[in-house]
């Protein structure tokens, strides 16, 4: 490689290692992310045109603002961020590894000058005595030291929580792991949905993007869907679906799912997400003719005219499962004489029958007394279907991020050096220490450490 190329590559490398780039990327990510929170994402074209006008919408399209988190420029930003992290780690990790694995065990004056925690002691005790006492002291009060004897001097070195140096790297790598997990989910997973009518099953689901259904490789049947309300309120308490997984017609797994409690089978998870009514409800009424007292059970569908004994008829015009906190209710319309010619638009008396109060309708005083015995509404359950083989990788990354950043912030690599050497006919001790974080607290610790060391050695 020519010198010129070499320096060009160096430049690129330095660029991607630089922390300035990291800070700029972080700020750019923060600022650009705002766009997608102000402009709604992934809406149909008409909505944008209505809100912003045609030309603004064209601009949005050109800049990918309507789906910005998947746009080339946002993904580029994320890539720069990742490359930055990788390069920076590659550049710094070897140095840190060396620092931890091959620490400087022999402290010379040059090292002591760089330490803010430093003390010199001179005592009349012999070098052997001092060395022994100092070793005991350091072992007891800090940790077992490495001892090096060299040129008539004794060097002690001890360190604690050296691995705290790696907290930052664990944090950084965790971000890359989360990226990998997200990519795995995108490549090998999918997000889909499916509506399953009660009593039926499906073996395919519909991806949110794309038109072709995805084969599950097994069947899912919905036996029942239900909405439960809080007593005396229209606030839903639970949406539940009884799901059954079938393989080759065999029931493999049964589970009643609800929101926040999905069913998983073979890496595919089904989430309760929506529901709807399927076809018309069937109602069962008990109808009593007031005059004769004869009672009859009749079945009706919405809108269907049912004849009654005595020549009259009725039909269900409306129905709700929750009528002003009274529960299920049907609005019915009664025609006194079915034979009589209907004029179009002719109105008949209509009233509400509550399932929870079967006696209530007798007070209305009509020709017939209705009570709603039961109704059968077929529902479909709307399921979100997700397959995400990368999700565990994401959780692993999240775990490492929390552990890594806690150790980066709250653990400190602390080191102590001692050099014991003859000074004229006495013995001199140099002691120095450093902590890579939270120096003020360490200073207090070190003051105590050296004070006690002094008293220990003068005994």
């Amino acid at each position, binding site marked *: 490689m020519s010198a010129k190329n070499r320096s060009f590559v160096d430049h690129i490398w330095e660029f991607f290692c630089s*922390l*300035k780039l*990291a*800070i700029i990327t*972080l*700020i750019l*990510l*923060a600022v650009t*992310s*705002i766009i*997608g*929170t*102000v402009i*709604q*994402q992934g809406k149909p074209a008409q909505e944008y045109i209505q809100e912003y006008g045609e030309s603004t919408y064209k601009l949005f399209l050109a800049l990918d603002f309507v789906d910005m*988190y998947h746009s080339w420029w946002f993904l580029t930003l994320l890539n720069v961020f990742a490359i930055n992290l990788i390069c920076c780690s590659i550049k710094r990790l070897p140095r840190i590894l060396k620092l931890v694995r091959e620490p400087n065990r022999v402290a010379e004056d040059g090292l002591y000058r760089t330490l803010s925690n430093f003390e010199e002691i001179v005592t009349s005790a012999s070098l052997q005595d001092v060395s022994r006492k100092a070793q005991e002291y350091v072992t007891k009060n800090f940790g077992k030291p490495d001892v090096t004897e060299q040129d008539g001097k004794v060097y002690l070195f001890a360190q604690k929580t050296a691995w705290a140096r790696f907290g930052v790297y664990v944090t950084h790598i965790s971000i890359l792991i989360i990226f990998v997990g*997200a990519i795995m989910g995108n490549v090998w997973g999918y*997000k889909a949905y499916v509506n399953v009518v009660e009593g039926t099953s499906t073996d395919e689901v519909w991806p949110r993007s794309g038109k072709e259904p995805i084969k599950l490789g097994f069947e899912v049947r919905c036996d029942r869907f239900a909405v439960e309300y*809080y007593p005396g*309120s229209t*606030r*839903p*308490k*639970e*949406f539940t679906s009884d799901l059954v997984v079938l393989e080759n017609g065999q029931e493999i797994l049964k589970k009643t799912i*609800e*929101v*926040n409690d*999905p069913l998983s089978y073979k890496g595919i*998870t089904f*989430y*309760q*997400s929506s529901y709807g009514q399927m076809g018309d409800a069937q109602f069962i009424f008990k109808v009593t003719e007031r005059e004769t007292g004869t009672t009859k059970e009749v079945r009706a569908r919405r809108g269907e005219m049912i004849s009654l004994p005595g020549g009259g008829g009725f039909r269900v015009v409306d129905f709700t499962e929750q009528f002003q906190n009274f529960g299920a209710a049907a609005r019915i319309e009664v025609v006194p004489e079915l034979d009589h010619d209907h004029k179009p638009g002719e109105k008949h008396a209509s009233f509400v029958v509550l399932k929870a109060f079967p006696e209530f309708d007798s007070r209305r005083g009509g020709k017939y007394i209705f009570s709603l015995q039961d109704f059968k509404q077929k529902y479909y359950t709307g399921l*979100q*279907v*997700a397959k*995400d083989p990368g*999700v565990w990788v*994401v*959780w692993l990354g*999240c775990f490492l*991020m*929390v552990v890594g*950043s*806690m150790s980066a*912030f*709250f653990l400190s690599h602390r080191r102590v050096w001692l050099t014991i050497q003859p000074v004229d006919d006495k013995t001199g001790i140099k002691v120095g220490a450093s902590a890579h974080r939270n120096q*003020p607290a360490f200073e207090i610790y070190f003051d105590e450490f050296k004070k006690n060391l002094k008293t220990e050695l003068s005994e």
Partner: protein
Amino acid sequence: MLSVKLFNATTIAYFVSMIMFIAFLPTRAKVVALIGTIAAYIGFVLQTGALGYRWYESYQLLGADGRAPLSNLYESVVFFAWTIVMFYLLLDLKYKQRSIGAFVMPFAFLGMTWAQLGLNDAIDPLVPALQSNWLTYHVITCFLGYAAFAIACGVSIMYLIKAGKEENNAEGSPAGGILSLFPSVRILDDINYKAIMVGFPLLSLGIITGAAWANYAWGTYWSWDPKETWSLIVWFIYAAFLHARFTRGWVGKKAAWLSIIGFGATIFCYLGVNLVLSGLHSYGGG
């Protein structure tokens, strides 16, 4: 409800505390600051009791559907105030710098006042999407993080006031008057950093528990909805703060400004997104 009455008493205690801390600045009377601190403690104890009692009340009202008092805007604002005071009292134990109270207690007082006067304090049962233990973990971690950022913001404001004054003084001599009660700029800067150091992993945990919950409820841990995105924006800002500080020596004024911007973004993430933008998160807007 008794809990709401207790929260009223809490609000009064925080008001007294705030006023005392503010009065402490011009009077410089130690006893005034002491009353402020005692009021903060009384309020905190009352509020802790009220939170516990509200939890109990929810079981009385809703039977088996009772839940931790962390599930609507009212409850979250109250909890936010509680976490702020908790962090403040911890800070007071460690640093004994009473002047900080004048810059932190107002956050707690404003929160409580808004909750008591402006928000619906009913204990409603939870809609299905909120029935998850993840809700509790998510709210607790998020608000602990937010509270740490509130403290950081408070001391940053103090920093800017004090540093600004000292710059105007000739040859940067320490500021006199009220400002002499402020901790030294070095300590303020250090508290700013430490509070963010505590808040950052908590915010990370808050985002992660939120993602875990979303994954459990509808199968996507991240969907770029405005609330999620704003929490990430806040996270980016504080990550930038940490890196700028650690490696580019952004301490002092720049760090203080970044901390204030970060807290502004935090508040927008918490309230602005619901009140201004639209999204998935169901509470907010009253």
